[in-house]
């Protein structure tokens, strides 16, 4: 089996109950798995389900372990490996605060425009930009803002979904 470290984007449907997220996070910390990003939000009020998107990395065997261990948790309804089941869309949102005056302020606005960032708050000495896109795009934007008065960053982590008509349920892992 390949010992190469690979990234995986895994979606988990889990019952929206207290302690459910702690089970998932505890599983990762307790077994020493890596978490690069983890996002969670309720997605189905009627069935009381939340969706967790977790970006992790490991050998093929470790990734398989992570999925099997997640599927074993009682409140988990399904596990879908978005990396393994075909192309997927992954997006992240960032709020970036830049404190600057004069020329750097103008430069910041130009770059934000090029990145299609929205200005969601402004004062004479500051901006808050809202930017959505891939992690790499957000990283690049933050780096460009660093010399222009970057003061604060808040990022959501990745939300991801498979491309095409296939859904979570048709692509979920079977155990």
């Amino acid at each position, binding site marked *: *089996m390949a010992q190469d470290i690979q990234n995986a984007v895994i979606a988990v449907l889990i*019952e929206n*109950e*207290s*302690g459910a997220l*702690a*089970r998932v996070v*505890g599983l990762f910390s*307790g077994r020493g798995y890596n978490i690069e990003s983890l996002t969670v939000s309720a997605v189905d009020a009627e069935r009381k389900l939340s969706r967790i998107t977790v970006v992790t990395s490991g050998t093929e*065997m470790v990734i*398989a*372990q992570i999925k*099997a*261990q997640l*599927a*074993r*948790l*009682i*409140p988990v*309804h399904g596990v879908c490996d978005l990396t393994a089941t075909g192309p997927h869309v992954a997006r992240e949102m960032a709020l970036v605060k830049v404190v600057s005056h004069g020329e750097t302020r103008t430069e910041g606005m130009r770059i934000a425009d090029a990145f299609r960032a929205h200005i969601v708050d402004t004062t004479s000495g500051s901006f808050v930009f809202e930017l959505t896109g891939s992690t790499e795009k957000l990283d690049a934007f933050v780096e460009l803002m660093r010399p222009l008065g970057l003061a604060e960053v808040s990022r959501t982590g990745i939300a991801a979904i498979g491309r095409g008509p296939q859904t979570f349920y048709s692509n979920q892992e079977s*155990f």
Partner: protein
Amino acid sequence: MNASRQQEETNTKALSGAEVLLRVLVEQEVEVVFGYPGGAVLPIYDALFRQNRIRHILVRHEQAAVHAAEAYARSTGKVGVVLVTSGPGATNAVTGLVDALMDSIPLICLSGQVPTALIGNDAFQEADTTGITRPATKHNYLVKRPSDLAPIVREAFEVASGGRPGPVLIDLPKDITVGNAPLPTSGEGRLHRRYAPRLDADADAIKQTIAAMKRAKRPLFYTGGGIINSGPKASEGLRELARRTGVPVTSTLMGLGAFPTTDKQFLGMLGMHGSYEANLATHGCDLLIALGSRFDDRVTGRVDAFSPNSFKVHADIDPAQINKIIKIDVPLLGDVGRTIEALLQAWDGEGQDLSPWWAQIEGWRALDSLGFQQDMSPEAIIRPQYAVRRLYEMTQRLGRDTFVTTEVGQHQMWAAQHFQFDKPNRWLTSGGLGTMGYGLPAAVGAQIAHPDALVIDIAGEASTLMNIQELGTIAQYRLPVKLFILNNRYMGMVRQWQELLHGSRYSQSYSEALPDFIRLAEAFHGTGLRATNVGELDGVIEKMLAHDGPVVADICVAQDENCFPMIPSGAPHNEMLLGPDQEANAAKITQEGMMLV
């Protein structure tokens, strides 16, 4: 009042949460609860007092309640039930819960909790029990609403016993047990979707396994506790499968008894203290069929050198065990008993000639790797292996149904190597967690479940002291438990590793200031016996077995005896140490190997 009217009144009368809890336990066929009262569970204890369907066994420490329930579950195949109070009651139960999790034992732990309004306020005897026990249980619940109580308890039993069994904790705030709660009909108000693990292995995987079995010249069944958990039919199936295929069988510590250890096809236990023939067969086989075992590190040793040339099939009910440690060629996901049944149906008897393989195995067997030297003069010091063998032989003569529990350490390995088990569910030992202090409370649980059976705790003197207070439980319920202590005045396994790995610097492993076990037994209203040499051993065992009450037998054994054979940490299976004369080889243990101990 006529009967039907009375029944109607009972049905409509408001029930307290505690009463609802007990009704659901009765509905789940619970007969025994092991517990210890406290403030947060007083309503439940009051409800217990006012009924006679469920028997409560009062232990002396909550850890012991869990171990007793574990042994009750393992020896009966039922779900064990524990009742503890909030805070320290629940935290004392944690070791037992992890023990049950590691060894896949179905348990329900009912823990009291402060009233819901006080949760999070650092109230008296409050602990975040669900938080603390999250990684210690298969699943846990905090009951927040009276209407959730009955559905949660019902679901908890399903989760505990379904699939790969495990412990489930239900945290019960006092206002929930004091206040009224509904008792819906079964199946109503479920919290989660029905827990339904896959039971039948893929038909194609069965075909691939059969094809591999037909090709194999050196096949081996590597069996584990999963077979015992699956139920008696799985053990029967294994015996039939081994008989019809002629394939040799080895077992993990947890699996002992699933296949008769006295059978010619049984090679003994494998792994760190397994037999030479079992480990050489594991190393040399060309087909390894794992049945309800999980490639634990005590079995595999060095993973990259484990059974290097075999095609590997793994039957397990837990998908997370497949490919966890060892790369598997064919997974058989499902109940191992059903998998064995499917293999039996598909096997047409046309395998390879296994006689060359058996000839090789017999060559390894001829080494008698479990052999030991016992000077038979009456004053001679007792070798612990000899003590276990004599215990087995003299127990055999009685023909009684016998259950053996153990503590953890050298005595546990000697018991596994030298006591024989021809039936499943008779060997109750802490495998995965290795919990010193397991055996005495486990003996309580086994004796409660089987009042007429012979229950022996083969113990070490250090482990014995970890839950010695349970002699009080044994006295209270007049349990004729036999505590058979192999007393070498050391934490023997620690001492052995210090000898092998740390230049014989016996740091803190000597059992200083031991009690007089005879007087200790008498203090707890029992009988104490002692054997200090070979001449006294048989007499002590005979007296112990003949006595119809609890006995503590202090068997003073050689202090310098080590457990052999042994795979030194970090070595492959074909580099075993067979005895003390080979201990010099332990110098080969690398720093990486030391870390694996």
